[in-house]
């Protein structure tokens, strides 16, 4: 990890001093244990702030859209794919972005660590290789990192950024064997009634804080459909119907674009597993149009495109 951090800082320093970029967006240590925060570096002397470890869970693609200056972005596999989606959708010119790819073995889900510790407060935590060392009042624990990774990391098929300009360190082995749609398939096997009740239960927790929308790099619309008032499409209440529609339509909007970075699930204050919806959308697009988002800088999102031979078995 230290080796990676060192070479990341070297790359950042080189890009800044050679004036290839005006700004480096990366991670720095946060103020709370296991937290990192986005770090914006525009002076070479500040590159020492940059860090890289398994607690770097923010999706930095969020900061690329609408930026005028040239930026270098530290990007994991999922971040790099989302930057590619934003470039393909003309949200940012390719020449303004340098993707500093970092191979990623998964990021730690703080919620999983917290639930393991039940009510106990973590005062200090460090990630050392394969272990997470957590300390609090009157306890000290050594946890295996792999048991506390985010769900989306467990089935990630692009740990190495598929698109990058510079790669930090060496590529890591990809998970080729895992089935990324297990969760969705289990839900599909349920009866419609059961599924409805399941989603009712899950989404009725929603408090409409829109954290999932704020964190998503793809939610860059100037006015979101739920904020529109002329016409008011759907209510802003937390009536179950309105809440479900918000999540259904948001899922539709990211169809063929979402790369399952898991940011929406991680950020949810009431622990809604939004991946159940996002993964389904990914599966539909994959099965129907054989498309996977974020692997190309040119290919248009599948819902803005068509083929004359698209399947139409559902049309009467």
């Amino acid at each position, binding site marked *: 990890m230290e080796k990676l951090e060192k070479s990341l800082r070297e790359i950042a320093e080189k890009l800044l001093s050679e004036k290839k970029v005006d700004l480096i967006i990366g991670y720095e240590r946060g103020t709370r244990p296991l937290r990192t925060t986005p770090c914006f570096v525009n002076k070479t002397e500040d590159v020492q702030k940059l860090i890289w470890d398994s607690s770097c869970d923010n999706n930095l693609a969020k900061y690329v859209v609408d930026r005028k200056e040239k930026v270098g972005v530290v990007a994991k596999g999922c971040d790099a794919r989302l930057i590619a989606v934003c470039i393909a959708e003309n949200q940012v010119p390719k020449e303004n972005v340098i993707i500093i790819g970092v191979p990623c073995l998964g990021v730690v889900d703080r919620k999983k660590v917290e639930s393991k510790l039940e009510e106990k407060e973590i005062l200090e935590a460090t990630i050392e290789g394969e272990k997470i060392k957590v300390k609090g009042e009157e306890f000290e624990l050594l946890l295996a990192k792999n048991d506390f990774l985010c769900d989306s990391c467990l089935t990630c098929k692009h740990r190495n950024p598929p698109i990058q300009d510079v790669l930090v360190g060496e590529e890591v082995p990809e998970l080729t064997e895992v089935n990324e749609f297990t969760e969705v398939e289990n839900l599909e096997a349920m009866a419609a009634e059961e599924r409805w009740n399941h989603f009712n239960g899950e989404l009725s927790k929603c408090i409409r804080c829109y954290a999932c929308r704020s964190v998503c790099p793809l939610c860059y619309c100037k006015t979101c459909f739920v904020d529109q008032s002329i016409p008011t499409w759907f209510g802003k209440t937390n009536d179950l119907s309105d809440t479900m529609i918000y999540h259904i*339509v948001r899922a539709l909007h990211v169809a063929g674009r979402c790369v399952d970075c898991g940011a929406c699930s991680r950020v949810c204050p009431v622990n809604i597993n939004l991946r159940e919806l996002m993964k*389904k959308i990914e599966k539909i697009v994959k099965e129907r149009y054989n498309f996977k988002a974020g692997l190309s800088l040119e290919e248009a999102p599948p819902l803005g495109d*068509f083929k004359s031979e698209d399947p139409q078995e*559902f*049309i009467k």
Partner: protein
Amino acid sequence: MKNVEKGWEPRILAFLCNWCSYAGADLTGISRIQYPPNVRIVRVPCSGRVNPYYIIKALQCGWDGVLVSGCHPGDCHYISGNLVARRRFAVLKDLLEYVGIEPARVNFSWVSAAEGGKFASVVTEVVNEVKALGPAKRLVKVRIEWKNLKNR
């Protein structure tokens, strides 16, 4: 079909494209072909004009079923409106089914201006399927009553 009020009839909202399906529905009438009177028709310029919001909003307002109908592939007045719509509808239909909405409530069809008979049979099929399901419950927020709908 438990707890269905007596004399309940399904209400279907149909979005028909101006160039094919609306003319097809017109032909059904001109040819005096009978079909159930449960549909209310909204004429749209193209099936590609139908935003998924329209369909979801209709379900939220208590319509028991929605039908969207446009030109056959290759016949679109705007060349490819129906082909873009086809992808959008496929994803929408799959997703609604996944969250537990009965698939028969959301319907799509291609009906040309010459297919008066097909329009009648599509509507009959949709009405029968929705009748078998009973009144819409899922996703409904407010139920808009027949009597409050203005007739022109």
